[in-house]
């Protein structure tokens, strides 16, 4: 980084510098906001997946219990 800064020409940080910085910051900021929104959505999807997994396991346990009860009922 130090080598890069030493090799780089001095940037004129006058009035123009502020406008250029603002333009690039807006660009980066929008990308960051977008990535943050997508991360939230991914989190929500993860939640939906674990909820689905819980529901499927509950349904499977229900089926297993019903299958266990069935032979006993037939014996009686």
């Amino acid at each position, binding site marked *: 980084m130090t080598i*890069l800064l030493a090799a780089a020409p001095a940037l004129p940080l006058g009035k123009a510098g502020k*406008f250029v910085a603002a333009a690039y910051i*807006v*660009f980066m900021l*929008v990308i960051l906001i*977008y990535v943050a929104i*997508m991360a939230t959505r991914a989190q929500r*999807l993860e939640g939906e997946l674990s909820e689905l997994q819980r*529901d499927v396991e509950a349904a499977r346990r229900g089926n297993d219990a019903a299958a266990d009860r069935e032979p006993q009922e037939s014996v009686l």
Partner: protein
Amino acid sequence: MHTTYGKGLRGLSIAAIVTIGAALALAFFYAPLDANQGFIQKIFYIHVPLAIVTLCGFIFGALMAVQYLRTGDRRWDMRSYVAIHMALIFGIVGLITGSIWAKASWGHWWVWNEPTLVSYLIVLLLFCTYQPLRFSIEDPERQSRYASVFAIVAGAFVPLNFIAVRLAQQYVHPRVLTLTGGNLPGSMLLTFLVSLLGISLLYATLWKYEMAAKNARSQVRRLRRTLLGEDTMRPVGRSAAPS
């Protein structure tokens, strides 16, 4: 048929990051200062590619919409929707960066007598109505069909608008690229092309990312419906996005 959009996403993301990083390095450490505009011209390396990719994104969305109308496959509608959605985000950033350049260069955030600016705004506003149009139609089939027709008509307007502006006599807006190669010297042209490639890769990455997310979500819902039956589905409200 099962489609996966996450395939190749990592490679594309890395390519986008590397290219954008290279473009920034070239813009600030390699490309010379513009003789007329000075340092403020550096905004062009981001503003112009954003504008170009936005317009290409709208056309891309229109082409996907054509495919939807041809095949009736809802995946094309989803692709068209995401292409337009992403292009709108890029377009708004392009508009903001352009305004910042205009303020620094012309002293105004916006001027109404500049055909390039106004035509770009018209195209952007036209596509801003795409989502409300979708949202206003409840039936998913009709929503997809009407939205596709809109995307095609509005997409066809993009090149027409571009040609009309180019044919206009009075130019205030700088021309970065022309059929004869533009007024850019080699180092500036290289920087510009790398920036254009970087922004295009970023668009492709985000499009794929969004498609992968939407596809995963719809697959989870489909799975839920298959495993647990229709009744267990939570009511999904009206949405502009294709389901």
